[in-house]
């Protein structure tokens, strides 16, 4: 009765739905399910039906997620403004992020999002073992994400790539490593990179000892005009190192490292803040999933009560959503 009179206050569509819901509950009662007068033990006294309770919980969660989107929105504004003002720092900074690691992390998060969606499904079907398995897999995905993130962060921090005023990059070591990492990825596409960054290597402190070797040597492969320089450089390398082939490879790739722009530290400030806040959400999500996992192992969830699984799932999908935007914005600048 109470449910029907409340329903009238709302629009007709909802009233109709409420009525169907009531008849359906009665039908379930007759079929011998453990409702006491349509009253689940999980139904709080201030709700009329489980459906209403479920929808209210979901709406509350969505309101919270909206605030989360606004929270990250502020950081996206910072990103947009700095990228509009100083696009060069983003073009420089993204060389320090490994798209393979970022892409792997994207895939890991998407997969864990899928296992979370599957967990909600199994909770709805009351399949406890599969629910627990899916939650454990989701937690595993979250751990995997953080482990990869740890490697990314530590690789930068060990070379002094910190955000803001702590930015004190150890260019020599860092760029050498970057050259190694990027060299494998771009080996076949060498041709179109040189002319873009060729001038940059010249004024770089790191290139001092073999500075002339860098740009002309690669360029000389195509235009015959540089032939003279090419010969000189070739002989220089042979004298210096006794000529291991690997050295030649490193020298050739040197022009790819662009000169560090003045405000490069801003990129890393944005990078650490955005990925850090996202990482914090991953940790909070892991705590929430762990809590749901404990409840699931106790067998709390079933077809009529799975709201915690569903809402934690919504949170976890939001974490995935944010990363879906962070990944191309930070890693795939070109």
């Amino acid at each position, binding site marked *: 009765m109470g449910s029907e009179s409340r329903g009238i206050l709302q629009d007709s569509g909802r009233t109709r739905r409420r009525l169907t819901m009531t008849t359906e509950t009665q039908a379930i009662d007759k079929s011998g399910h453990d409702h006491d007068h349509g009253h689940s033990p999980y139904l709080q006294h201030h709700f009329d039906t489980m459906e209403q309770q*479920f929808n209210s919980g979901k709406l509350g969660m969505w309101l919270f997620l*909206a*605030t989360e989107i*606004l929270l990250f*929105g502020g950081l996206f504004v910072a990103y947009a403004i700095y990228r509009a003002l100083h696009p060069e720092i983003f073009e420089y900074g993204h060389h320090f992020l490994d798209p393979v690691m970022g892409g792997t992390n994207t895939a890991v998060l998407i*997969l864990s999002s899928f296992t979370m969606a599957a967990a*909600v499904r199994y909770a709805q079907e009351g399949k406890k073992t599969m629910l627990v398995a899916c939650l454990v897999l989701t937690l595993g995905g979250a751990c995997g994400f953080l482990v990869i993130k740890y490697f990314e962060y530590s690789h930068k921090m060990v070379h002094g790539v910190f955000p803001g005023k702590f930015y004190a990059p150890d260019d020599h070591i860092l760029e050498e490593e970057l050259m190694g990492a990027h060299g494998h990825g771009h080996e076949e596409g060498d041709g179109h990179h040189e002319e873009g960054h060729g001038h940059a290597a010249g004024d770089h402190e790191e290139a001092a000892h073999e500075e002339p070797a860098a740009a002309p040597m690669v360029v000389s492969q195509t235009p015959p005009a540089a032939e003279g320089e090419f010969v000189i450089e070739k002989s220089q390398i042979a004298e210096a190192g006794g000529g291991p082939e690997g050295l030649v490879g490193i020298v050739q790739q040197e022009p790819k490292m662009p000169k560090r722009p003045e405000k490069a530290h801003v990129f890393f400030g944005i990078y650490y803040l955005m990925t850090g806040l996202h990482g914090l959400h991953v940790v909070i999500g892991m705590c929430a999933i762990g809590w749901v996992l404990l409840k699931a192992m106790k067998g709390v969830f079933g077809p009529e009560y799975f709201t915690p699984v569903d809402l934690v799932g919504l949170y976890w*999908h939001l974490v995935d959503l944010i990363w879906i935007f962070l990944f191309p914005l930070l890693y795939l600048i070109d």
Partner: protein
Amino acid sequence: MNEGNTHNNEHHGVGHIVDWKVLIGVLTALLVLTYLTVKVTEFDLGPLNIVIALGIATVKATLVCLFFMHLYYDQPFNSLVLVSSVLFVLVFILFSLIDLSAYQPDIIQDYISSMRDPAYPLDEPQ
């Protein structure tokens, strides 16, 4: 959008059970789109690159919202909450950028770098 309330025979609980086919299809689409967004950066399309990257990200986000987050089956009000928050973020970004470009003509070039103490290479006080 009201399919969520037409329960099938096996399911007596609340909410809508998303079909396995839909879940796996969305997962596949997300992974393919991730691969695509990485591959497309190999082509230099100028300003189109970021448009494509953000377009793919938006498609992925929409898929996650509609099916993983059940918005397709939910009461439309939940979608309204999401869409309004996203709209406000867009307003925030767009108005900030409009404001930024509005005073660009008045900026004196290299004013800040001429004021800076060369002893401190970064803007922040140290």
